[in-house]
């Protein structure tokens, strides 16, 4: 999509040039000089449909980022080339709306945009007609879904309307009063079961340098004190043995996978500047240490996900060093994008990540590079039985390469999971083109959690609407496999920036209630850890209190997800009740007749809920958290009551 960016500079005499840095939805970040004309700088760019980002540099000073000439800020301006749809029914016969949930059970979802549409029906044939149900309704919009056990029939049709105004939905997004061949949709082919077997429940992210320094770690000049401020240059000295030592504590949370930020030999504490893709960083320990750790994890049924930077490596990576040494004669000169020889780090005459000279970008079209990276990953899978990979900056990598990378590894271990880092809310290319499993859910973080809990820009009902929009924008499995988070190593810690700290329980409660795979960032279970600048702060073990109310809460949430796996894996989401005056929200996850119900009280006062009115046709099996909704009725302020319910078959 073509988009013109205009930066007016009248009145800013000191601005002689502007460079725009563009972070497209798909493809690598790039910079271009904007064109000066008539009191403004102009740049016309071509970005894919969706969300891309840009920022500006003034007067060739690349040390300071601007959002506009008035706003210096290390951040991005979204370029949104995506429309808000408005139609009668938004439905397409693809994985965004139609999915196999379990065996022959198919879920069909759609959105209607007019309040007069009061019913939507799934029509298989004259005798098989089923009603869609409304998961949530706000203003003119309704979010519908239906689950249907697919039989022999391969076709279906959708009928919508009210009373005598009944229409068939057509494939071309139009509608007709008369049945038409365009109204016939075909059920999708039964997929292979990859998503279902790969699904995880709850994860825990460890930034290895900051997690725990074991007593075996030799003291070293370049280690800073464990409690000092992280500066991304000096090491705390966390190590593999340290993780091994603390594993029991983490295991008790009930998580079923750990995601490690890079552990390969790297040039800095974050280790995204990989020096050797086939070696544990010596500061972290040895291969043997790592082997023991993985074995211990697997013995506890905890999977391990590694972080791999396929886009860029360190200046000390062997191939790049070889070019520095042999220049044009180097056998590796095609491994990178070298603009001119002699190659020199000082001149930065090579392609590097987002202008960062320490991170050299691979030429991923080169087959030797592809082979090297694939073989590196296979080495880890074969030797250590790694269960999955988090692909750094996946939106910047070509899909065909990712596809090849994933397939090659799955040939070795077919259950391997691939999660792509993606800041553009784009599951489509990573799942459909590259054949990955899920992404890091920045869309959820930015559009839902940040908007409500940090910027306080949207109220409770708009929060839920944003949540439903997010859920209906991606396929069921994309959502389920994607990682939902409130903090990670690139974001400020959620608690440190949370506006009203009392909302902490609710935010995490919601994170664990909604579809997706929640991933805790190390230290989050302590609630408070580090100030906004200290995202990668060292873990505060002195204050690690597994008995704190928040720690127990997180443990409960994970426990509930583990005890009712099917509901959280296959269940849908419904919002049976919301009251913005009383700040009360009920989120239900449901599979078959079983429900887990989160009654969330966002207000400052304890409140009650007319349980019978909302759940009249259900039977309360167990109170999982909070008070008994029938006997005591009280729901604590800024907290959730969580219930296990069963739909009463007498009423259905």
């Amino acid at each position, binding site marked *: *999509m*073509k*988009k*013109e*960016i*205009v*930066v*007016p500079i*009248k*009145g*800013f*005499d000191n601005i002689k040039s502007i460079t725009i840095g563009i972070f497209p939805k798909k493809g690598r970040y790039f910079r271009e000089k904007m064109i000066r*004309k*008539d*009191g*403004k700088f102009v740049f*016309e760019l071509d970005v894919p*449909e969706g*969300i891309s980002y840009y920022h500006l540099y003034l007067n060739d000073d690349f040390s300071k980022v*601007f959002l*506009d*000439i*008035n*706003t*210096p800020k290390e951040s991005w301006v*979204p370029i*949104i*080339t*995506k*429309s*808000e*749809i*408005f*139609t*009668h029914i*938004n439905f397409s016969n693809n994985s965004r709306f139609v999915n196999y949930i379990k065996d022959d059970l198919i879920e069909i979802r759609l959105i209607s*945009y*007019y*309040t*007069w549409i009061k019913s939507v029906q799934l029509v298989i044939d004259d005798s098989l007609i089923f009603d869609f149900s409304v998961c949530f309704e706000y*203003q*003119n*919009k309704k979010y519908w879904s239906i689950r249907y056990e697919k039989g022999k029939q391969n076709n279906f049709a959708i009928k919508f309307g009210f009373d005598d*105004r009944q*229409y068939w939905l*057509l494939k*071309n*997004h*139009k*509608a*007709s009063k008369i049945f038409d061949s365009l109204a016939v949709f075909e059920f999708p082919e039964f997929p292979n079961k990859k998503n279902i077997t790969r699904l995880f429940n709850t994860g825990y992210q460890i930034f290895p340098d900051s997690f725990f320094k074991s007593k075996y770690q030799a003291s070293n000049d370049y280690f800073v004190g464990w409690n000092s401020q992280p500066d991304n240059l000096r090491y705390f000295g966390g190590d593999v043995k340290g993780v091994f030592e603390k594993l029991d504590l983490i295991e008790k949370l009930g998580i079923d996978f750990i995601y490690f930020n890079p552990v390969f030999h790297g040039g800095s504490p974050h280790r995204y500047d990989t020096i050797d893709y086939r070696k544990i960083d010596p500061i972290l320990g040895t291969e043997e240490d790592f082997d023991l750790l993985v074995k211990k994890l697997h013995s506890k049924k905890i999977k391990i996900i590694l972080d791999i930077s396929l886009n860029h490596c360190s200046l000390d990576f062997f191939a790049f060093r070889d070019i520095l040494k042999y220049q044009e004669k180097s056998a590796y000169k095609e491994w990178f994008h070298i603009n001119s020889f002699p190659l020199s780090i000082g001149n930065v005459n090579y392609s590097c990540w987002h202008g960062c000279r320490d991170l050299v970008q691979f030429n991923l079209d080169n087959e030797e590079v592809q082979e090297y990276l694939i073989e590196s990953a296979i080495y880890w899978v074969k030797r250590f039985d790694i269960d999955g990979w988090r692909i750094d900056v996946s939106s910047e990598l070509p899909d065909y390469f990712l596809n090849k990378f994933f397939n090659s590894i799955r040939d070795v271990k077919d259950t391997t999971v691939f999660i792509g880092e993606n800041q553009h809310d784009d599951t489509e290319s990573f799942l459909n083109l590259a054949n990955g499993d899920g992404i890091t859910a920045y869309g959820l973080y*930015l*559009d839902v959690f940040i*908007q409500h809990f940090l910027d306080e*820009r*949207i109220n409770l009902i708009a929060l839920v609407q*944003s949540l439903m*929009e997010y859920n209906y924008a991606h396929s069921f499995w994309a959502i389920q496999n994607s990682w939902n988070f409130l903090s990670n190593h690139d974001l400020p810690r959620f608690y440190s920036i949370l506006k009203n700290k009392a909302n902490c329980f609710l935010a995490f409660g919601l994170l664990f209630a909604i579809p997706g795979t929640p991933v805790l960032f190390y230290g989050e279970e302590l609630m408070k850890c580090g100030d906004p600048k200290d995202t990668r702060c060292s873990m505060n073990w002195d204050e690690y209190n597994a008995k704190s109310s928040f720690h127990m809460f997180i443990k409960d949430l994970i426990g509930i997800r583990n005890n009712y796996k099917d509901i959280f894996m296959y269940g849908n989401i419904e919002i049976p009740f919301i009251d913005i005056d009383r700040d009360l929200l009920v989120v239900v996850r449901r599979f078959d007749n079983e429900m887990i119900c989160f009654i969330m009280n966002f207000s400052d006062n304890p409140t009650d809920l007319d349980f019978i009115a909302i759940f009249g046709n259900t039977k309360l099996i167990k109170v999982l958290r909070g008070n008994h909704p029938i006997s005591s009725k009280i729901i604590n302020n800024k907290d959730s009551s969580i219930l296990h319910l069963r739909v009463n078959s007498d009423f259905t």
Partner: protein
Amino acid sequence: MRIKRSIVHIAHEVAPYYKNGGLGDVVSSLPHYLSKKYKNVIISFYYKGLMNFFDNYITDDFFIEMQGVDYKFNYYYLSKNDVDYFFLNLEDEQVFCTYSHNALNGKNAYKNFSSIAVFLYFGKAALKLIQLKVSNLAFIICHDWHAAGIFAYPSLTHILKMQSQIDFRTILLIHHYGHQGNIYEDIYPFLEDEPLELIKDLYLNYGSATLLGLAIEHADYLLTVSENYAKELKNGKLPHENLKYILQNKKNIIGMPNGADYSEWHPENSPFLTTNYNVNSKENKLIFKNEIFQKYGFDIQNIEETPLVLYMCRLTIQKGINLFYDSYDSKQEAATDFFNKYLKLGLKFIIYGEPSGGIKGNIHKSLTLISQKYPESFYYNPNYDDENAHIFLAASDIVLMPSLFEPCGLVQLYAMAFGAVPIVNQVGGLKDTVNNYYEKQRLPTGFYMENCNRKGLYDTTKKVVEIYKNHPDKWEQIQINAMKQDFSWNKNIQNYFDFFEEIEKNVQFEWHVDKLVNKYCS
């Protein structure tokens, strides 16, 4: 008696019923003044729950088909001061509120809330309503991009012409080129065939599509709200996106200055002034100046020799806030230095308007700091209301309007009427309406900034203050000239009548768009 022919205005907002900004005011006053010679009909959105002063209306409905579904549209009709109002809503009352109201208020920064289809359907319904309710149609005036849906259904326009047997003309009146209603390709599957064809053509020709672009491409005539803004659009000298719609198709744009509503915004008629005055009793300004000096604790020695300077607008880059100081410098002390320089000229400074970034932003913080540091000379208030605005205008000697661009501008018109001399950047409507002291061909009514930069604004202000202090006779003459200017709708509406007359003369016979426009604009 000759039956009046009709002008239909299609607009997103009309004061006082629903108003977001200046557009609503113009859509309210323009038809009123046009009704001397034409029957005026306004078709606008009905925003359930958001309408003001809305009573004594009649409602009815009609159906139109969209994407194969018959939709009912309700309309609310009322007639006031000779102008007919129709407010359209979908039977589904939430839709317009949700999509178009939210779109205009930018509810969510990460989402694109403009749903183009809604504006297209509104246009389609408006055409249907014209067919049902308007006779003797002469012109349809589309105000800004929100109303551009009427250009998406040429077949309906054609039917309208055939049925009424009148060859009416369509006009796009551009109030602000900065907002356009972007159209992206992902919406194609959800559009009706006719608009889709036109949008595809637009993409093909320009590489992008917006509703404003659609209107520019298909309107018979393009108007904008000042002659100079028209010129700037044609020269491509504005910081707006997609100027190519104008630059590439080389359509002419005619400047039609807005009028000021002197029934309220004039010291003689102001409902807020305790003592009304005019050019013959301008010494009464001192009453207000005294009042302000006392109220805000400015030192009141030599009050007559101390000019009171007013900067009143939304405090944004467009309005020139950055020409006072480096508003992106996070060190707020820097701002105090800049303003200190102004205060050293021996003046008192009032800044009045909503700051960009709100009360949490940099601008608010630094201005608050300055007003704390120099309470005896500097007053800042971020909460705008009309009453204060009138009193500030009456009390001020100098009004600053250093806008980077300004389609028409109203504050400079008010300033002159109230006897406050404007210092303006020579852009858009500011250049058209203020006569520079240093150019002798017109009676001076104000000052142009020498350069559009920080130094230019300061230097000009310095010179102006010197004239104020040392040459009271010259100053008085500028003031009198300014107060005698007439930018009323009563006067400016004549431009419209002349324009319509020219067109109608020609429409009767044969249609020569280019010839006519060239003739009119030469």
